[in-house]
């Protein structure tokens, strides 16, 4: 092989390697729906509430949904929930719907819900909810994790860690 053939071979090899790495990266990373994509994995499910009654997420179709994955064993989760209760009360008539998805058992969830006068549904997801949150971008599977869905059922925002009130108010203000 002469010099230019070697150069061509080397160049093609480099391109192939880069492509392989790129493909590898795409396939190895979790499949995370991005903002603007369908929240079908979330809005298509049904989970039991604290009384064991199945609640389909589709009952809130057309509303702005703030789905908050939480647990009683997660102090930062509990700390932000009274703010959610207040915003639910203030914006319910504009079509805002908070939905709590607890990675927890019903007894503890009921107790905490009573303590803070929870005014939005508390669904019991168990550990399966952790897996669901992973498909929505919570690759560390930590809590709290919140997914905001617009009226068209698209993901508008995902967040691991607590939401600040002004940030949440701004996001839902754009969507309501």
């Amino acid at each position, binding site marked *: 092989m002469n010099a230019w053939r070697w150069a061509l071979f080397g160049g093609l090899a480099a391109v192939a390697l880069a492509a392989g790495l790129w493909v590898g990266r795409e396939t190895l990373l979790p499949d995370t729906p991005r903002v603007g994509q369908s929240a079908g994995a979330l809005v298509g499910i049904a989970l039991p509430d604290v009384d064991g009654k199945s609640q389909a997420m589709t009952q809130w179709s057309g509303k702005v949904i703030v789905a908050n994955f939480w647990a009683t*064993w997660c102090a930062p989760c509990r700390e932000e929930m009274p703010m959610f209760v207040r915003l639910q009360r203030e914006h319910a008539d504009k079509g805002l719907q908070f939905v709590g998805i607890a990675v927890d058992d019903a007894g503890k969830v009921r107790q905490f819900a009573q303590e803070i006068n929870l005014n939005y549904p508390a669904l019991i997801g168990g550990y399966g909810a952790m897996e669901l949150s992973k498909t929505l971008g919570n690759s560390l599977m*930590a809590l709290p994790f919140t997914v905001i869905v617009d009226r068209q059922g698209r993901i508008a925002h995902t967040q691991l*860690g607590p939401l600040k009130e002004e940030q949440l108010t701004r996001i839902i203000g754009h969507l309501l």
Partner: protein
Amino acid sequence: MAAGPNLLPAEQAFRLSARVLDPSTLEVRYNIADGYYLYRDKLRMSVEPPPAASGAPLLPPGQVIEDAFFGKVQTYRGLVVVRVPLSGARPGTGLTLVADSQGCADVGVCYPPQSQRLALKVPAAGASPEPPVEAVPAGKSFFN
């Protein structure tokens, strides 16, 4: 994702290692990364298979914090060394530690309770303890 990019996976935030010091003593260590903490009352340790059995872990006192829902709770930061009394462990054989823990990061996220298993060796009679065995992270990150 506000808290996402710099957070460690739980098994890296709370690095578990353990060794059997002698047939009646197991030593469990959690090396907790800066900015993370474990709950003392969520630590559970047991061994299998029978006849090996463990007694109540000797948990050192933690830092007391006031939790609005659970009241006073104790947390650990940095290095925690827990001794666990053993019975029925035969010298020179293997046993499995099952260690449950749960913790959080100061940035405001908590990890679900995790249960980890470590295969350990009981030193033969008169032999020194084996080096500590470290838990292998369950999920390897593509970036590490």
